[in-house]
């Protein structure tokens, strides 16, 4: 997802570009209808951040709406120390977590055994070759379903990190700030989330690709 309105500084954090800062300034001075333009690029990813925590569509939509309305209500407290995007994600994460606590759901969600102990190592379970993603793979419902099921199976703290980092495309520093955790914890959780997603998807991914289209041996998909 493009967050092209922003400038990335040398700490890996996005700062509002002059256009976005000017837009926020005008909203604060009373041109509130401009808030649509400010928030529109982030609507989808804010919903997905909310969904990654509350895990159902109705609650995720409520949380996303509530978070975006809160950001409008408190826009005059935004100081530009982080990007608007990171600030909005923080509000969404907090709103979603409060929703879970309020409903007493998953409050003490356990990690999935020793493999998810952040002090231990994650050992990949599967070594299937998965070189290629066919360009039309995500047009297919069954592929999207595999991805959604794999993501849903992760413990909450891993879902939060992988969605902020790989869907919302926040930096490591921004993800740490939005979640209120250390950068080292972001990296650890991200590693486990990505490896576990791969373990779940790789064994079935070979069925997505006709054998004649496999990449030549030794070539990487991104090279």
């Amino acid at each position, binding site marked *: 997802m493009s967050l092209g309105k922003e400038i990335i500084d040398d700490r890996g954090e996005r700062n509002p570009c002059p256009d976005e800062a000017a837009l926020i300034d005008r909203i604060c001075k009373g041109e509130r209808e401009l808030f649509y333009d400010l928030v529109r690029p982030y609507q989808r990813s804010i919903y997905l951040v909310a969904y990654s925590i509350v895990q159902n569509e109705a609650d995720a939509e409520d949380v996303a709406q509530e978070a975006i309305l809160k950001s409008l209500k408190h826009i005059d407290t935004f100081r530009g120390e982080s990007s608007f995007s990171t600030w909005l994600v923080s509000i969404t994460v907090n709103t979603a977590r409060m929703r879970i606590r309020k409903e007493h759901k998953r409050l003490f969600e356990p990690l999935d055994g020793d493999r998810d102990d952040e002090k231990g190592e994650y050992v990949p379970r599967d070594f299937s070759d998965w070189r290629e*993603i066919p360009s039309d793979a995500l047009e297919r419902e069954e592929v999207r379903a595999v991805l959604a099921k794999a993501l849903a199976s992760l413990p909450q703290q891993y879902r939060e990190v992988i969605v902020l980092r790989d*869907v919302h495309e926040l930096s490591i520093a921004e993800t740490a700030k939005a979640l209120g955790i250390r950068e080292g914890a972001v990296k650890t959780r991200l590693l486990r989330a990505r490896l576990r997603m791969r373990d779940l998807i790789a064994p079935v991914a070979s069925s997505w690709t006709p054998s004649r289209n496999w990449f030549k041996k030794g070539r990487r998909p991104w090279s």
Partner: protein
Amino acid sequence: MVLNCRDVWKEISNYLDQEVEPALRRELEAHFAQCRHCTAVLDGTHNVIVLMADERAFSVPIGFNERLEERLRQEIEGR
């Protein structure tokens, strides 16, 4: 230092995020060149990142944007 597979797995995510020092990067790439299992883990982990970032991967419910903009309209015009 010669990396073993466990050392490599711990760094795969950082490697893909370009968060490793050049010396470690060279060690990792030397290992990938001769280890089929770690190359499979690397390729698959990269593919997870590509899939997660694709806008087709996850969608919002039908009417989500319209309902959100209606809530915003009520808030903005209601004042």
